[in-house]
């Protein structure tokens, strides 16, 4: 079924219970991912984008992190009410995850072949021989050359780009429906990044894969995503189709981010920038969390926090009191 929601997150709140204060890392996040769609989750450090992905996977063992409110529905299943055992089978089988630094996620004392096979045997119940054949198929799928020799290599013998391909092969080995990629290309050189992004696009088409792509880089978002959610201070502040977002960004934070990027080949004398920095949770204003840095903030913004308001009929939402019309009529200027 096209347009069917594969994942639906509603009202998610994940707090970290640390001394001396509670940190509301994710504070009311709503998002959906459709089948075969790449959703980009973009935000700066501390915005809560990684914690959102860890919440979906429920990976908070031995951390002070706790999901305190909201619901996460994957296909028809309510993920928050699953037993830990059931979650273990969902992780890897149905939702797989890759991280920024492939070296730290690979076991240094196992060969590439051994670690992919381990996942396959555990999740799919294959024999060793079947698992080896499947591992080779997966490595070929992600464009690794000389597969027969590389399965005997150790992670340190591969380049960063090759390691990330191995991680993707491992993630794809149990045919997950959703791939969560948390800054998958941030540690890679730009030419290798381009190749990995190409690979993710290909898998989206060939495997009808849905991807939640978490990144700080609006360039990466523009290259591969279908839809984008922008995060700030634990909330989604804007959500739209990728073309719509880049053409008509509505939220002042998104606008600010786009204007601060240096653009190749454009002779820019100066870059515009967002004043100040992301406030710590204890310094969040009562109303809109962006008010402290917003060039348009007025009385209401400081008092009441806006909802994620529908800004046009095509599903473009923005958490801002100022629609374009209001800006015009009130004569609000930065």
């Amino acid at each position, binding site marked *: 079924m096209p347009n069917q929601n594969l994942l639906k997150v509603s009202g998610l709140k994940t707090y970290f219970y640390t001394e001396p204060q509670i940190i509301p890392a994710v504070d009311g996040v709503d998002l959906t991912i459709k089948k075969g769609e790449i959703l980009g989750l973009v935000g700066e450090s501390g915005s809560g984008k990684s914690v959102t992905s860890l919440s979906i996977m429920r990976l908070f063992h031995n951390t002070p992190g706790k999901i305190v409110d909201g619901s996460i529905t994957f296909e028809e299943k309510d993920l928050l009410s699953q037993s830990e055992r059931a979650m273990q089978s969902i992780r890897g089988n149905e939702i797989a995850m890759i991280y920024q630094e492939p070296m730290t996620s690979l076991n240094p004392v196992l060969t590439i072949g051994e670690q992919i096979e381990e996942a396959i045997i555990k999740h799919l119940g294959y024999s060793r021989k079947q698992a080896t054949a499947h591992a080779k198929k997966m490595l070929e799928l992600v464009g690794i050359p000389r597969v027969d020799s590389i399965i005997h290599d150790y992670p340190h013998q591969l380049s960063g780009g090759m390691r990330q391909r191995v991680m993707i092969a491992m993630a794809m080995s149990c045919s997950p429906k959703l791939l969560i990629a948390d800054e998958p290309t941030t540690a890679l050189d730009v030419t290798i990044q381009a190749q990995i992004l190409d690979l993710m696009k290909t898998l989206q088409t060939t495997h009808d894969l849905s991807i939640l792509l978490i990144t700080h880089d609006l360039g990466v978002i*523009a290259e591969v995503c279908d839809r984008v959610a922008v995060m700030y201070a634990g909330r989604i502040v804007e959500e739209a189709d990728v073309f719509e977002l880049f053409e008509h960004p509505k939220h002042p934070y998104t606008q600010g981010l786009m204007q601060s990027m240096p653009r190749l080949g454009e002779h820019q004398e100066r870059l515009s920038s967002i004043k100040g*920095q992301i406030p710590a949770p204890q310094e969040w204003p009562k109303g809109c969390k962006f008010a402290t840095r917003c060039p348009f903030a007025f009385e209401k913004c400081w008092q009441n926090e806006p909802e994620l308001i529908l800004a046009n009929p095509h599903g473009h939402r923005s958490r801002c009191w100022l629609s374009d019309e209001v800006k015009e009529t009130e004569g609000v200027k930065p």
Partner: protein
Amino acid sequence: MTKPLVKVEQLTKIYKLKTKKKSDSPKTLKAVDGLSFHIAEGETFGLVGESGSGKSTTGRMLLRLLDVTSGRIVFNGKDITHLKERQLRPMRKDFQMVFQDPYASLNPRYTVSDILEEPLIAHKLYPHRADRLKRVKELLSTVGLAETHMKRYPHEFSGGQRQRIGIARALAVNPKLIVADEPVSALDVSIQSQILNLFKDLQEAFNLTYLFIAHDLSVVDFISDRIAVMHRGRIVELAAREELYNSPLHPYTKRLLASVPVPDPKQRRKRHDIYEPLPQQTPPLKEVSPGHFVAL
């Protein structure tokens, strides 16, 4: 163009690698392989390349923080390649460095005031403490920090503010040249733009010369007058910023340009340039048009 402040000729760095057995013949790694370029006074010279291309090694040799294997570095008309540390010392205030990770490069047990006073003491610039503190206040205001920050420690600051402290420390001794090695790559994009603007403002105010090292071509393109593209220890192309963007000649430069993600989904590129093979050999740089050099 004004006179060159820095001139580098055939600069080479060879690292000796550890061997497993003593009897093995020693292995070496040529990190920088016969680099020649100059940086004019008041200019920003961008050095761009991927990890392992030798750009940081080049920056460190230029400041004599790393020994040179062969070649020559001439700073302000004086050959500094083999100067002893004692002879170098008085010159060091003329060339300063700004690092990537402002946290790792600031002493966590020093207050901001201590951090900024230190270079002034080391170079005996202001014998009286009152004058030094006046200078510290002046520096803080120059980089957009407040006097009230003087008594605080590095951990109390955000990444962007820490980088401002790192820049203030480099500025303290009134240098002519600043080597900035990936100074904005650890920062969020909204903070990155503030720091890039600051670099530009300071250059204008103090007639600074920059060697700006970064892997991000959009950043280098924004800040630089001329850009050298490094690949495997060699410069494969060198040209004025606009020329390099508009008419890249080396396949590696083309590949870099094609790989930079563009923040506009309508410009999603057909990435054939990223899979084109690179030439095996890197011949010496040739000037193909005035000021545009390429190793083809």
